[in-house]
């Protein structure tokens, strides 16, 4: 039988020109094969076939103007082929979703059947001011305790949720708080224990601490202008070490590797570890911040300066967290598009509590939860201090962050108190200790750590007679030893373990630490810690004693590094741990294969005159990309990134052809489903439609533009934006892209101060090229004609992506 293929609904356009016919009479075609390309003055789209069979005749020719329902082809199809019709994509995805939903329900049932954990003690909250009937309160709390011990936490949580819902329906519009008490999220009895040798790990950590501090002090003794930081790493050493010894898997020929965004200011700690691993020499440590003439070490993580070591530039505050989120999202994109295997790789990002004040730091956390990035783990090192003073002197940064992240849908793990606190908290029958913990502000917490045990006894435990009594048997020294969670390897291990196993949401670990941990009176928890780069002899002696570094007084005076023999248990242990985890970190390598050269005709059509036909260079670019999408080698590697302006640029044809990436597929029928360029979302979609979000789009572009090293796959990202909202808006990210050795195309569309006519002052760009010229490895062009664009783009692909 003969079937007619007619022009589908093409939206608001009529009399649109046929510019290309992609089939000929006698061809066999399948559903979704592109048949013709049509082009209005704004957009160019391919019309796909809706039938299968052999083309009997073609009813149109190039140059014809066509509208909806015009005949394109007659196709002869056997009924067999018709029967063969595959299930439409949407139906297929609906079935899949239904199946997934059922599986999920099953999982939930399993969770609720989890054996009930007997809780020995439960914390009873202290009477609050505003409690008009404490006895009634007590009744409710006891009922709750009974439910917990009988049916478990899940049931208790369910009941609380129901109560709140009921209250809400009855008109009590008081939202459920996002905060939990100021104690660890993981109770001691639920902590997973490390199988590591804690003594040897402490010795290794102490050596890394010592060498990290020594390299900064030595550099500044030589040249006081060099600067550097001791305090940041000192506060984060345990956080890094637990990861290095037990969690972070390196890239090797069997595994893609976890991606770790190290906090910029803690770079000396990474160098100190690489020194023990034998990857850096003593001479190199002595060249910290002296990169010009020697094989020096960069001040902060800079892949441009240490291309075999650093993977991610993180020191521009706030960019690390955002880049990490989009990196995790891009990893899922590659997996969902079938370009890399799902190996359970993780993205870890280390951030500072002060850094979280950058809007960029928190700006994308909603996306991370929405996209269910369970491959992402943030570790926020809360040492309570920024450069000038406390991060939140009058409040509590940990509680604030907890609320923001939980409110955005993250899995939050607070690591506040170390193991020495466990028994005190367990014995806090009246709840007064937790009450003090909740009431004490960060300014006080910081001040206490700058003093001593007696001060803490008086100012902290002394607030209530109950808590004063609680520590009556402890000496001042014991009180001083009460540690913070971020310095306790057991607590950190348990948190990392839980984070690694979390599914369905990103995790943030909020760890409380002390800035300048172990630096003594000069540097511990004092407002000037961040700038500390010199330690006098007394401080150094204190530091040595504090961490039992086996150096003589003389060696300390000379600020010698300490590296045990390669056969020592410490070095053997350290290397063995890394061997078990696949190799060393950080390390930057690339094994990506170049992309095959595209065929010449893809560009040749742009070298002939367009005749009478007028078009913009944006349009010419879209036509070129449409052609590139037909090249089977190039097509899968193209990553079009658009911040909600696809229609402005005439790119809506891409929606149907390659789909918009959406990790959940498309759960609805789009309003324009009947149209040719309907808004098609797909789990394996190719377009990254970022919404009105240039910073996010640029972060995605950087992830794609560095996939050749982070995922060993060469990709061609093309980020198209209003030229005015490019470098001017995301200049710092563009700078980071240069540092990262990004490869790809940035297209500043609707460019030119007088060419983008009606839009006015904020939109008309007359300087983006000048900003672009500040980045040394950015190559820029302002072409006029289509053939110029073709020659430039072709050469860009050759230089960046193809085999030489």
């Amino acid at each position, binding site marked *: 039988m003969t079937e007619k293929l007619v022009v589908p609904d093409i939206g608001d356009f009529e009399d649109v020109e046929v510019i290309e016919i992609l089939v000929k009479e006698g061809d066999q075609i399948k559903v979704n094969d592109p048949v013709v390309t049509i082009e209005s003055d704004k957009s160019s789209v391919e019309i796909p076939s809706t039938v299968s069979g052999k083309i009997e005749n073609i009813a149109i020719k190039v140059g014809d103007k066509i509208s909806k329902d015009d005949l394109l082809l007659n196709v002869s199809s056997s009924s067999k082929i018709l029967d063969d019709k595959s299930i439409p994509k949407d139906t297929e995805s609906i079935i899949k979703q239904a199946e997934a939903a059922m599986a999920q329900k099953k999982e939930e049932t399993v969770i609720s059947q989890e054996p009930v954990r007997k809780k020995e003690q439960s914390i009873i909250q202290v009477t609050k001011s505003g409690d008009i009937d404490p006895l009634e309160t007590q009744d409710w709390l006891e009922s709750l305790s009974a439910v917990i011990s009988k049916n478990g936490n899940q049931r208790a949580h369910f009941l609380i949720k129901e109560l709140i819902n009921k209250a809400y329906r009855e008109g009590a519009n008081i939202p459920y708080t996002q905060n939990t008490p100021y104690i660890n999220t993981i109770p001691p009895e639920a902590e997973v224990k490390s199988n590591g040798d804690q003594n040897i790990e402490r010795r290794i950590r102490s050596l890394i601490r010592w060498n990290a501090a020594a390299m900064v002090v030595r550099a500044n003794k030589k040249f006081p202008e060099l600067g550097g930081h001791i305090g940041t790493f000192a506060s984060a050493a345990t956080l890094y070490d637990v990861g290095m010894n037990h969690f972070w898997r390196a890239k090797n020929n069997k595994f893609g590797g976890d991606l770790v965004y190290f906090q910029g200011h803690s770079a000396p700690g990474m160098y100190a570890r690489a020194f023990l691993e034998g990857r850096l020499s003593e001479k190199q440590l002595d060249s910290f911040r002296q990169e010009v003439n020697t094989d020096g070490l960069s001040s902060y993580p800079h892949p441009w300066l240490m291309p075999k070591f650093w993977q991610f530039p993180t020191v521009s505050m706030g960019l690390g967290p955002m880049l990490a989120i989009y990196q995790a999202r891009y990893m899922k994109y590659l997996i969902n598009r079938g370009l890399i295997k799902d190996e359970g790789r993780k993205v870890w990002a280390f951030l500072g509590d002060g850094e979280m004040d950058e809007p960029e730091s928190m700006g994308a956390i909603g996306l991370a939860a929405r996209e269910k990035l369970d491959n992402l783990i943030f570790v926020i090192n809360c040492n309570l201090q920024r450069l000038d003073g406390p991060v939140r002197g009058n409040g509590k940064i940990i509680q604030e962050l907890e609320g923001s992240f939980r409110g955005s849908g993250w899995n939050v793990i607070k690591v506040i108190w170390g193991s020495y606190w466990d028994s005190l908290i367990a014995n806090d029958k009246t709840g007064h200790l937790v009450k003090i913990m909740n009431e004490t502000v960060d300014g006080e917490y910081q001040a206490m750590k700058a003093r001593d045990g007696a001060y803490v006894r008086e100012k902290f435990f002394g607030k209530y007679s109950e808590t004063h009594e609680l520590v009556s048997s402890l000496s001042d020294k014991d009180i001083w030893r009460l540690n913070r969670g971020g310095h306790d390897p057991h607590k950190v291990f348990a948190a990392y373990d839980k984070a690694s196993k979390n599914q369905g949401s990103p995790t943030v670990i909020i760890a409380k630490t002390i800035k300048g941990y172990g630096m003594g009176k000069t540097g511990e928890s004092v407002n000037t810690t961040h700038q500390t780069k010199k330690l006098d002899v007394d401080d150094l002696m204190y530091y040595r004693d504090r961490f039992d570094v086996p150096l003589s007084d003389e060696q300390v005076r000379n600020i010698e590094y300490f590296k045990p023999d390669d056969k020592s248990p410490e070095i053997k242990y350290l290397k063995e741990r890394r061997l078990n985890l696949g190799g060393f970190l950080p390390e930057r390598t690339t094994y990506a294969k170049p992309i095959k050269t595209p065929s010449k005709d893809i560009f040749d059509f742009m070298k002939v005159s367009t005749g009478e036909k007028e078009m913009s260079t944006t349009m010419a670019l879209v036509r070129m990309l449409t052609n590139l999408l037909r090249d089977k080698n190039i097509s899968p590697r193209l990553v079009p990134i658009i911040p909600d302006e696809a229609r402005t640029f005439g790119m809506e044809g891409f929606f149907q052809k390659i789909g918009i990436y959406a990790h959940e597929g498309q759960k609805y029928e789009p309003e324009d489903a009947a149209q040719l360029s309907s808004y098609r979302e797909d789990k394996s979609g190719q377009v990254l439609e970022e919404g009105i979000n240039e910073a996010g789009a640029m972060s995605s572009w950087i992830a794609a533009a560095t996939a050749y090293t982070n995922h060993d796959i060469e990709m061609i990202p093309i980020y198209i934006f209003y030229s005015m909202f490019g470098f001017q808006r995301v200049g710092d990210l563009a700078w980071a892209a240069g540092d990262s050795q990004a*490869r790809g195309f940035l297209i500043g569309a609707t460019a030119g101060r007088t060419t983008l006519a009606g*839009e006015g002052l904020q939109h008309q760009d007359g300087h983006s090229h000048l900003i672009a010229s500040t980045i040394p490895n950015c190559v*820029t062009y302002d072409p006029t004609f289509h053939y110029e664009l073709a020659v430039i783009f072709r050469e860009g692909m050759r230089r960046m992506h193809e085999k030489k």
Partner: protein
Amino acid sequence: MKKNENVFYYITTMNENYSHPEIPKDKKCEEGILKGMYKIKEYNEFKKTKIQLLGSGTILREMISAAEILQNDYQIDSEIWSVTSFNELRKDGMEVERYNLLNPDKDQKISYVDQCLGKTEGPIMAASDYMRMHSDQIRPYTNKSFYSLGTDGFGRSDTRKKLRKFFEVDKEHLVAYSLSVLAKEQLITSKYAKEAIKKYNINGERPMPTKL
């Protein structure tokens, strides 16, 4: 095997519709496009006075129209250069100048800008849809007289034609500026410039667009 280069590309594209010619037959054209400039057209009928016109982006088309007027109405010859990248030209110029200064005893290299323009006739006038500083970047790399036009100042909403008039990069202003440049270089008398300024209703006392 040479490694893939760690560079990234920034290319501007426009939304103005116009027809596009075929690529010039000259074999060196593609090389010029990539290096940053190539000659796209030449008017050579009168062989009296000549000017070098450099245009970039959409303003190249204004420059081509201006050259036609200069030829037809004023008997001025010109060579029109499509500048695809002032930035790339500057990079080459910097590198060549640096090398020459550090190697005074060796054969002196010639910047690509100078290779293109060094032996041409007449002063140079450049214009783009960007600030003057954009085209000014190549000024140090040629010894010839060099004038820049551009869109310095805040943009505002209006038609392309009016905006180009406002920023003085439309074909009429380009003609008037060309004639004035040639007069300043004492290649023609100033009466042509005065005439053109009057003809196109250009007000010489108008404040700089950066102040408007």
